[in-house]
């Protein structure tokens, strides 16, 4: 669905990403894994053109990304950022309805995400952390986009809620790119793991192959599982 070929991204003179070649298959969950500053969030923002690549190419369904109008592109990608980016002056209903192009009604969509429809008329600050998560996911799904991108959405949640939200992600029938620094989360969610280190891919493949990697940082990550 999405193909990145030798993608590089510089910020000023700093090379943030180099030589990224990657396939993101349709209806699969691709998890970008790595430490803070490894470039995984940046990579996500190249796909919806919040940032523009410095070198290489990205195609969506064989079409170069530069040939797609950024607004059209973004409307076909659901996006959830780390702190959710909910609009504080909008009710949950409006957050979803504003971007709604779905065959399901706003209520049906909310319900399918596990959001109690009686909460729809509340503002974000009147909702719990888990409810806010669901609003953000429902909002991202409101336009019925083929692709969903999530940037460490669950990092602030308690373990139980986090597990619940991961379960929710597993039920979605979408192409998903999921960014996390949490190995357990990555193993649980990913059909494909992509491990980034200092702007390079040091591993990509199915989760069970991660153990075969020789990279010291991947090994260090795997050791955290034994503790």
């Amino acid at each position: 669905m999405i193909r990145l070929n030798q993608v590089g991204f510089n910020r000023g003179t700093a090379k943030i990403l180099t030589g990224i070649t990657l396939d993101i298959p349709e209806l699969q969950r691709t998890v970008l894994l790595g430490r803070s500053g490894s470039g995984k969030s940046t990579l996500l923002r190249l796909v919806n053109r919040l940032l523009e690549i410095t070198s290489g190419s990205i195609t969506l369904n064989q079409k170069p990304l530069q040939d797609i109008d950024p607004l059209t592109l973004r409307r076909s990608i659901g996006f959830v950022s780390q702190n959710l980016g909910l609009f504080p002056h909008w009710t949950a209903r409006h957050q979803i309805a504003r971007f709604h192009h779905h065959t399901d009604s706003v209520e049906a969509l909310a319900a399918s995400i596990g959001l109690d429809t009686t909460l729809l008329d509340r503002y974000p600050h009147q909702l719990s952390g888990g409810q806010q998560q669901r609003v953000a996911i429902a909002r991202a799904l409101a336009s019925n986009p083929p692709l969903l991108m999530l940037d460490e959405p669950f990092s602030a949640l308690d373990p139980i809620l986090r597990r619940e939200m991961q379960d929710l992600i597993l039920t979605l029938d979408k192409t998903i790119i999921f960014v996390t620094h949490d190995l357990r989360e990555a193993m649980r969610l990913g059909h494909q793991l992509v491990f980034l280190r200092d702007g390079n891919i040091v591993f990509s493949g199915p989760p069970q192959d991660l153990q075969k990697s020789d990279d010291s940082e991947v090994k260090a990550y795997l050791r955290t599982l034994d503790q």
Partner: protein
Amino acid sequence: MSDNILSLTLEHLLLVSLAVLAASLIAIPTAIWSQRNPRAGSLVLKLTDIIQTIPSLALFGLLLPLPLIGGIGAKLAVFVLFLYALLPILRNTLLGLDGISAEIRESAIALGMTPIQVLREIEIPLAAPSIVAGLRIATVTTIGTATVAAAIGAGGLGVLLYRGLATVETELLLAGALPAAALAILADQLFQWIEDKLSTSRRPR
């Protein structure tokens, strides 16, 4: 006498309203532009800051000989009041816009909103309480400064104040001072009320 107070109060209000309205029309768009061009924006802010430091009577004196805006009368008064009203509106609008987290802006853009939609639906509403605070400060201070405008024949409640000062008549002084104070307090309360209305139910960030 009471007729006179009423008409001077209305005149005073007109001076203030024209000045604050014109200042908002210039300062709010300028603030939006400055927020997107921080380097040029800080220059603009500095310039309005300098205007603010010039004593009002001195500014009237400085501009009086100028063609077009100069000369005795309400035109110059409105212009000077307009200059003074710029800073509080500009600064508070900027403050409101700067207070919106990058993440909220990014989400709006990532969901496919156009820059105009982000401005209209996200930025302006979220900055609204702060913008209104700027209007409140601008209006209240302009009501005060407008009393000085009588010195250049612009009318308003300052007429009574100057006359009272010249003749040392307490009654005349009070006839000018009390309505001016009442106007300022009323304006303050009104804008405060709007500010509170805008802030409740949308506690941002």
